Each structure stands twice: as structure tokens, then as C-alpha cells.
């Protein structure tokens, strides 16, 4: 039975459980629902939960575990003597899986009959050709062992699937019966039971945040370890060259990428912090209601524009202008993608980020401090410079750190505006590349996840994650401390 049907049956069982539970509860009190502890539909829901939840849990576990078990079953067939090292073995298993899937497809399309797909006699070349016609190209050479393994895999899979269906449906029925007959009495606290289940669901939903973080860290950590088995960690962290080569012998040093990232982020902050801060000051302290009502949303629109738009802006507008009017006349280079291009455009992107955070922070400075300063005869700008900004400083530092973390993690602007060649140079009109550009570069297109050239992206990702996480935690801590001070 296909998965969707199985799911539908379970849900159907659950629905009938709901109806049955509700009926039974009402019947138990002769229709006088006020005699029940809870409203009748809670009894129904209780039965439905008992029917669906355990069945689905078993289903999920089964789906996760079955492939592992099956692979262990068939692995000896191909890996017996032929393959000793882990890579080749996993490659062979991948092939086996692909062939098995291919057979499925071929059967579905009618290129093979069910019997042919199963038969031991099928000519090997024939299978290959038919698979090809069905649009499945098995990876490397399909050896007879692999084919046999794939066929056995499919047989086991079919058995497993029948067993699974039986187990899941059985469990659902069992749950239904149990809840319906022993937990649908008048004094049973159905509402509390249902609410406990709902609460569990709510907790589960909020735990997804943690799961995501764990997923991020684990997925990158594992591949990073794999990377460091193929490539020495000190050469990665302290390498001054970034030169990946397909034929091997790549140099994958982090430093040039990190330099490009920091240089561009620095220029971006150089643009965004003064403009954003001054704009925030102007809007918070000077602008009248009407100007504020117009200008603030306008600037915030900048924050809602997708970064790819900024990227294109860098590529087709800012880059050529900088090249034609600055870089070439100054003899500093002839590349339209450069640190300057990406930095300036990224700075524009960060303006609303800095300004709205600073705006909040400046507004959080109590009015009594302003009054104190004006009362002493200070002008508005003196008050801002000498009282408000020092008072808001921790908060503004936090905002700048958050903006820096944004800049470091920004991808599309640098992909389109900074260039692809790694360089350790000071010339801001030279094309440089960043950590994020290289993550995209190494992981798009056809990638072989056993090569250091692809795996390095995970190490880069982890580095990026750690840096931005550190900045965020620090910034949030500072901002929170700042808020507490004036609360």
C-alpha cells in the first residue's frame, strides 16, 4: 500500500474513532451530556488521538529504520570482498539504491514487467538499456552483484512495507478499541487528557527551534570532520591561498576569504553606520511628525527589498560607475566587481537596519535626561552628542554588531558584486571573494560530497555560523542590558 493511502487510512480510522468515542460517551449517560465530566467531543478527540498518534509514531520510526536494516541485509552481497574502504562501499550502496529505484520506475513505466525486474535470469545489458529508456541512468558500472543486491533489496522492501502496513493499521485499531472501551466512561477526564496531548504538541512545535539549531550544528559538524580528515585543519585555518583544483592538490586556506568578508563588511559598516545613525538621530530628535511619517517608512522599504535586487544593482549600476569614474581614472583596477562595489551596496542595505535599531534605542533614552540638558542651556546637538549618544552607546554598539553579523553573512550582494577570485590585498577596487561566495560556489552544480573541494563549504559554513552567532549573542546581551538599564 502506498504511503499516502496508509496515511489516509489512519486518518480515517481516527475520524471514525472520534465519532465512535463521542457516541459512546453520550450513550453511557443516556444522552444527558451534563453528566459527563467533559464535553462529548473531548471523548471523541481522546479516542482519535489514541488511534492516530501511536500509529503515526510507529510509522515514522519504521520509515527511518527500515532502509538501515535492509542495507545491512544486502550489504554483504556486494561489499564482501570487492570493497574494503568505506568510500567505495558507500558508493556501491548508492549505486545499488539507484538501481533499485530505477527498477521501480521502469516497472511503473512498463519498460519492464514485474517478473523481469525480479528475475535472476534477466540479461544484465538488457536491464541497463531498459533502465536508460525509462530515464534512469545508473551511476558507475552496474555489476551483476549490484543488480542482484538491488533486486533483493526490492524484495525485502516489499515485505517490509506489508509488515509496516499491518503494524500501523493494527496499532491504530488497537488504540481505537482501547480508548473507546476503557477510556470513554462518564467519570473519565477526557478534557484533561486531550489538553495534555495538545500541550505536548505545542511543546513539540516550540522544540523545533532547538531542533533546527541542532540540525544546523550537526549537519555542518559532521561534514566538517569529514573535511578535516581529507585536509589538514591548520592548512585550512591558516592557509593564505585559496586555489581549489578539480584534479586534487587544492589549497583551501580560509584567510583570504575571511579577509574579503571582513573588508567588505567594514566598508559596508563605514557606509551604513554614519548614515543610519544620523538618519535615526534626525528622525528621532529633529523631524516633525509629518516628515517622520513619510521618511521612516521610505527608509524601511530598503529593508524589505530582497538582497538579490541589491546584488543586481551592484552588478549593473554601482559596479560600472565605480569602475569608470573611480577605479580606472585612479589606476586602481578595471574590475567592476570589487570590495567597494559590494561594500557600498551592502552599506545601503544595512542603513535601515542600523537606523531603525538606533531609532528604538535613542527613543529609549528617557526624556528627563534631555530636559536636564536643555535646562542647563545646551543646544539640541550638544544634548545629542554629549548626553543622548553616550547614554545610548551600548545599545548602538549592539545594533552595529548585529549589522556586522548581517554583513558577514550576506550572500547575494557579494556573489553578484564582489567577484570570485580570492585575494589578500588592500586595494578596495580589486575584486575579492568572501566566505559566503565560496560556500555558494563549492556547493552549487554537480558536487561530489566526498571531495575536500565540496566539503570545505561545510567548514566555511561552520566558521560563518560561529562568527555570526558570537556577534549575535554579544549584541543581544548588550542590547538587553541596555534596555534593563532604562526600564
Amino acid at each position: 500500500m502506498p504511503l499516502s493511502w496508509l496515511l489516509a487510512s489512519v486518518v480515517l480510522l481516527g475520524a471514525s474513532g472520534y465519532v465512535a468515542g463521542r457516541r459512546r460517551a453520550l450513550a453511557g449517560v443516556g444522552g444527558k451530556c451534563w453528566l459527563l465530566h467533559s464535553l462529548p467531543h473531548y471523548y471523541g478527540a481522546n479516542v482519535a488521538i489514541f488511534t492516530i498518534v501511536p500509529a503515526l509514531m510507529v510509522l515514522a520510526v519504521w520509515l527511518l529504520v527500515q532502509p538501515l536494516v535492509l542495507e545491512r541485509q544486502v550489504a554483504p552481497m556486494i561489499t564482501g570482498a570487492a570493497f574494503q574502504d568505506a568510500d567505495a562501499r558507500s558508493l556501491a550502496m548508492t549505486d545499488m539504491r539507484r538501481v533499485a529505484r530505477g527498477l521501480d520506475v521502469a516497472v511503473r513505466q512498463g519498460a519492464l514487467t514485474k517478473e523481469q525486474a525480479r528475475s535472476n535470469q534477466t540479461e544484465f545489458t538488457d536491464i541497463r538499456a531498459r533502465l536508460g529508456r525509462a530515464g534512469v541512468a545508473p551511476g558507475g558500472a552496474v555489476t551483476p552483484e549490484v543488480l542482484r543486491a538491488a533486486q533483493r533489496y526490492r524484495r525485502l522492501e516489499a515485505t517490509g512495507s506489508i509488515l509496516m502496513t499491518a503494524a500501523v493499521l493494527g496499532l491504530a485499531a488497537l488504540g481505537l478499541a482501547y480508548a473507546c472501551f476503557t477510556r470513554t466512561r462518564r467519570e473519565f477526564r477526557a478534557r484533561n487528557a486531550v489538553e495534555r496531548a495538545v500541550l505536548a504538541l505545542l511543546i513539540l512545535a516550540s522544540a523545533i527551534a532547538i531542533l533546527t539549531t541542532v540540525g544546523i550544528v550537526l549537519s555542518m559538524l559532521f561534514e566538517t570532520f569529514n573535511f578535516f580528515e581529507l585536509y589538514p585543519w591548520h592548512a585550512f585555518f591558516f592557509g593564505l591561498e585559496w586555489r581549489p583544483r578539480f584534479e586534487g592538490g587544492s589549497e583551501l586556506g580560509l584567510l583570504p576569504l575571511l579577509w574579503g568578508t571582513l573588508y567588505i563588511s567594514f566598508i559596508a559598516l563605514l557606509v551604513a553606520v554614519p548614515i543610519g545613525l544620523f538618519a535615526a538621530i534626525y528622525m528621532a530628535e529633529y523631524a516633525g511628525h509629518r516628515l517622520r511619517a513619510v521618511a521612516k517608512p521610505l527608509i524601511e522599504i530598503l529593508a524589505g527589498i530582497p538582497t538579490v535586487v541589491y546584488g543586481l544593482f551592484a552588478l549593473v549600476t554601482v559596479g560600472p560607475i565605480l569602475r569608470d569614474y573611480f577605479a580606472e581614472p585612479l589606476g586602481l583596477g578595471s574590475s567592476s566587481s570589487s570590495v567597494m562595489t559590494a561594500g557600498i551596496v551592502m552599506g545601503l542595505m544595512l542603513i535601515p537596519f542600523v537606523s531603525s535599531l538606533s531609532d528604538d534605542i535613542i527613543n529609549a533614552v528617557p526624556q528627563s535626561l534631555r530636559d536636564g540638558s536643555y535646562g542647563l542651556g545646551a543646544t539640541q546637538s550638544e544634548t545629542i552628542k554629549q548626553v543622548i549618544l553616550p547614554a545610548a552607546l551600548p545599545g548602538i554598539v549592539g545594533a552595529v554588531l548585529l549589522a556586522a553579523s548581517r554583513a558577514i553573512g550576506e550572500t547575494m550582494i557579494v556573489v553578484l558584486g564582489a567577484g570570485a577570485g580570492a585575494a589578500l590585498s588592500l586595494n578596495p577596487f580589486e575584486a575579492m571573494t568572501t566566505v559566503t561566495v565560496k560556500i555558494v560556489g563549492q556547493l552549487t552544480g554537480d558536487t561530489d560530497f566526498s571531495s575536500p573541494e565540496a566539503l570545505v563549504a561545510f567548514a566555511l559554513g561552520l566558521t560563518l555560523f560561529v562568527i555570526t552567532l558570537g556577534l549575535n549573542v554579544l549584541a543581544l546581551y548588550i542590547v538587553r542590558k541596555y534596555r534593563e538599564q532604562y526600564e
Partner: protein
Amino acid sequence: MNDLQVTDPTVQTRALKISARQVDVFYGDTHAIRKVDVDIADKTVTAFIGPSGCGKSTFLRCLNRMNDTIDTARVAGKIRLDGEDIYDPRVDPVQLRARVGIVFQKPNPFPKSIYDNVAYGPRIHGLARDKAALGGIVEKSLRRAALWDEVKDRLGAPGTSLSGGQQQRLCIARAVATSPEVLLMDEPCSALDPIATAQVEELIDELRRRYSVVIVTHSMQQAARVSQNTAVFHLGELVEFGETGQIFTNPNDPRTENYITGRIG
């Protein structure tokens, strides 16, 4: 610095410092002050008393144009400082406030060191020629605010680290440091204990030798103790204005009597 000059305390000058005529204040549509006439004499303490919300703070803030910082506030009428209309368009409120200082009800030290808090006014107005002079002003102001002995060893500590009463005296020192001609004080003692209150009252008495002081207070005793003149406000109107002794012993207006007796009797 001119205020180093010794003034003869016996000289009772009652020259007119500030005169307010027909002052109205609106907050948007709320009419907070109605047609108030008050004369503040030089080298005198004038007390503003009246029930809460009657407009004492509002009127006080008119006297150095602090109401300019509130968007909705509008002031009408004539207020003259030494005969010059302070709401004249040519007047720069910055210059005005250097001459008419203010201390608020709630202490509001800047998040800076004690020293920088006091030095703030002299610095922006350029009152000190050099570091030493500035240090002198800071010390003198702190002494006058009766705070010097408590903080002289930690001038670098943040102003916010002081106790509430100390903070209020710091704010007084800060206001005194610019040597204003008039010092406005909005319930300066509401955050203070009796000892600190006594110190501030002493300070006010001392300030009176050189400046004129306007003080808003809810304490009848305090008004009676420190002030020479008293203005009684009620619902935005000036009920009565005259010598403190006369107001407290022989008020003309029944509302004044009610207010005073309701409080102290």
C-alpha cells in the same frame, strides 16, 4: 568669576527680576494656565504652592522656555527677564536657560561621572578658562550643594551610582555650576530625607544672597520656612500672590485658606 564677590547679606534688594503678565499655556486643547500675573523679585525665594495638577510645573517651565521642548505646548502672554521679553523671536532659548537654571522633581543625572555632570554646564557655556578653573567651579558647586564631602574621593564615579538624595543634590550642583541669575526648582526635595531636605533648604537660603530662586513645593512648612513670597495656584489660575507671612497667616482668598488648612490644619 564674578560670583566670587562677597555680597552683603543684609542688603535686601527687592528689584524685579522676572515679571509675567497675562500668561496662558495650552497643551493642545487643554488650557493649563489661565491669565497668570506673577512678579519674581531678585534675591528672593518665591514659592509656588497649590494642589496637584494645578499647573505649578507648567508655569515654572515657562520661565526658562522649557515648554519649547514639548510639541503641543503653546505659551501666550508676556514674560520679561530684566525687562526683556523672553518669548521675543530674537531670544535664543539657549542663552536664556544659561541665565535661568532649573532643577527637576526627579533627579536626572547624566550617565557620566560626577565631575562631568557638574562640569557639563560650564563646558558648554565656556565658563572656565582652563582645567584648573573648571575644577574650581566643580568643587565650589558641589560644596554649595552640600555634596562635596560625600563625593570628593570619587568624582570619577558615575552620577547614577549615587543615592537618590545625593543625585538630587548633584543635579542642584549641576544647575548652580553655570551661575544662573534665577534658579527654578520643581519640588527639589520630594526625593530627599529630612536631613538632606534641611541641607537643600539651607542651600536655598544661601543661594538667595545672589540669585532669585523659585521653588515649587507641596510642603507648607517648607514654603513657610524658605520663601519670602508665595504664589498659590488652583486649576491653572493664580489664586493669590503675596508675602509668604501674609499668605499663611491672613489669606485673602478662601481657596488659599482651604488649601493651607486642609494640609496643615
